[in-house]
Each structure stands twice: as structure tokens, then as C-alpha cells.
């Protein structure tokens, strides 16, 4: 899957979690811009893991703050 396809699928997963309809770009941060608390982050990570059939460990999550970083991480994890 190419980067654009991954980005599109992640955007779809984000949608139901984006309660304030924040406009998403590569630099949108989950904690800052989307104002997700730790419980929302947990549910979102589980949704992404299931969507792409991958594991994003807590250790890896610590390095992912923005939409752009998540796309790159998923691309890498998918191999």
C-alpha cells in the first residue's frame, strides 16, 4: 500500500474520533490539536491496529504525535 492510500485509510479511522471537526493535515497533533485524552488515544490506537493488522507498542506510540508521523509509522510497520 502506498503512502497516500495509508493516509486515506487513517483519515477514515480518525473521523469518528474527531468530535470537534478539526481540519487534519500532516502536522495535526493528536493530543494538542485533536485534544484527545489518554482513553481516546487508547481506543484510536486499537482501531488503527485492527485496520492495518499491526501492533503499535506503547514504546512506538511515544514517538508518534502527529498524523504525518502516524502515516510513516504505519507504512514502516506494514513492511
Amino acid at each position: 500500500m502506498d503512502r497516500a492510500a495509508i493516509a486515506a485509510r487513517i483519515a477514515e479511522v480518525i473521523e469518528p474520533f474527531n468530535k470537534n471537526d478539526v481540519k487534519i493535515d500532516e502536522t495535526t497533533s493528536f493530543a494538542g490539536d485533536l485534544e484527545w485524552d489518554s482513553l481516546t488515544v487508547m481506543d484510536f490506537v486499537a482501531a488503527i491496529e485492527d485496520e492495518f493488522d499491526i501492533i503499535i507498542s506503547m514504546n512506538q506510540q511515544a514517538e508518534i504525535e502527529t498524523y504525518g508521523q502516524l502515516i510513516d509509522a504505519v507504512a514502516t510497520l506494514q513492511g
Partner: protein
Amino acid sequence: MNDMTPPEAAQADLFSKFDPLIETRRSLLATGVTDPFSLVMEKVLSPTTAICSGRETILLGTYNYMGMTFDPDVIAAGKQALDEFGAGTTGSRVLNGTYAGHRAVEDALKEFYGMDHAMVFSTGYQANLGIISTIAGKGDYIVLDIDSHASIWDGCKMGDAEVVPFKHNDIEAMEKRLKRIPAGAGKLVVLEGVYSMLGDIAPLKEMIRIAKENGAMVLVDEAHSMGFIGPNGRGVAEDQGVLDDVDFVIGTFSKSVGTVGGFCVSNHPKFEIMRLVCRPYVFTASLPPSVVATAATSIRKLMHAGNKRAHLWENSRTLHGALTQLGFKLGTAEPQSAIIAVIMPDLERGAMMWEALLREGLYVNLARPPATPAGMTLLRCSLCAEHTAEQVGIITGMFERAGKAVGII
């Protein structure tokens, strides 16, 4: 000379990160409620009663499930050890800190669980911290329930393994994550028998079967089940018939056993090496002789405590039924353990209810985030085998009056 001194840099206050919590606390106390986190017990009368602020108070938030703290045999053993071995060991278990009593309590644990190895730590927190951080290393994966106790999370954080949480008690979520772990990686599944916030139990039978099918080792924290769940009080894994498939059981002396300390029991043939490689075991002083003597005596008595267990379950069922009938919202629909969690609408009314109960003469735990799941405020009640049926009736009346006064029921 002075001209050459560089100007002092502005000092960032390392405490500013605590400002939101300081503010939450300030605004809560500004409403006039008693600080729920600085209660002092002036005198402890029994496992179920104490004097708090000059008032006799029924204790319903101590985890002293089996009421062993004032057992005459336990106290006598502690006094004798204090006389014969002194106040403390002043040393690590691997140097000068292993006395006859430390071996004796490990022997008692091996018998209690029917396992080959037992290792005693200075607290239950250190048992989780030490075992988890030591056995799961770089490149290994820890798969754990998201509602795990702080000591489990801290054990994960201290080690170098990849940490993968799954939704609370969700068998399918756990299985999916196990199946995604790269082939060849070491896997440790960490579960609890009873989850202490809501008092619910884990479906260990299914979870452990799936963990084993996927080549994982299994660690179960049975802190809140020891002594009264399972035919021999060995915990939820024993109750569900899967204790033989558990690689490591973690437990504590600070609940049913009635003193302080933590342990791990295991049948792993290489288990004894942990005594040399587990840093929270090595780099701290061992438990005082009086503590291990009280623990050993208590554990041996818990092996034959069938009647007390039955009474504790009776208490748990009675109170759960009565609170449900009064209209309180509880953490579980049926009583699954000796913990009954009463769900509060918010922190402020939770603190008001806590204080109203204290004024009635009842102590319960006020639990709030981050200790609680899903941002809940809870009044957590833990029953004791020494609570009389009469006390349980009195407690119900106190909840009714306090709940109506605060407007929760």
C-alpha cells in the same frame, strides 16, 4: 571579577507540571470537604474498627480481607521474632538480609500454592516491578490488560520490552495482539485475577488458554484474591482450574495476609536465578524479622480458613444486594470478589459522599483518576471476614442516609 560571572539563567520550576493537580485539589478543598487523602487513624481497635478524628469508625476500605492483622497467633509470632531476631535486617536478601524467617515464609508460600519456588520481596509493588522488568527484556513483548495496576505498568516501563495493552478483559483484543507479534519474539501475558478498582474478575481460563496457544508465558497478579477465592484460597486461576498453566503468580502480604511484603511463586525450573538478577529484590533491604514471622503464621492459618472464607462471601453478597436495592450504581452487576465499587457521578459529589460516610462513622476508599478506569470516581468498599452481619446492616444504613443527604440516591 564580578563582570565575568555569567548571568544566572532563569530557573524553570520542575513542579509546574503538577499545577493542574494542585488546582483540582485546591478547588475541591475550597468547597469545604475534609481532605480524603490525609485521614489519620488515631487508634486501631480491630481489623474492622478504628478511631478517626476521635470517632469510632467502621473500616470498609482496608483490603484486610481475612482480618489477620489482630490474629493472636500472628501477633505472638511477630513479638517472638522481634525479641529473638531484632527490629530489622539492615541488609539485602542476597547479603546479610536472609534470616531463618525469610526462608520459613517462602516455604509457607510454596506449600500454600503447591509450587516449587517462592521469592519474597519487600512489597507487592516491588514484586511486580522486579519480576516483569527482569524477565521481559529487549525484543520481548508484554501483552497486558489496560486496567492493570500501577506496579505492573511501572514494571513494564522499567524494562526494555515492547509494551502492548489490550482493552480490559477483552479476550479477542488480547488474541489479535498476540497473533501480530513477530515470530520468534518472547511473549509475556500479564493479567490480574481480581481487578481492584471495580472488583471484577478476569476470564482467566480462556485468556490463559489463548496465551499458551500463542506461545506466551503467563503472569497473574492474585493480590486481591489470595486467601478466599478458589478451593484453597490460591486465587482466581485456581478457581477457574488453570493455576497449573500460570508461569508466575504475583501476590502480596498487605491484603489477606495482613502485614506487608510481596512475592512471586513459580514452577519454572530456572526460577532461582531471579534472586541474582532482579534488581528490586537485590538492591533493597529485606523485610524485618517480625514481618516475615507474622506473614508465615498468617499464610499457614489461611490454608485452613474455610469458615472465614464462607463468611466473607456472605458479607460481600449481602452488602452488594443491599446497595443495589438502595439504588447505588455498582462496578459489577453481581458480587465477584470482596470489593464492591460504588460509582459516583463526579469527584466533587464523590468527596461529599465520602465525607458524609466518615461523619456517619464509616471509612471507605475514595478512588479517582488516574487510578480508576474510564475517568471514574469510585467509593471502593472492601469487606472483611471479621465484619459481623450486624456491622453489614449498620453499613447499609449509613450508605442510605449519606446517599440521600448528598443526593446520589
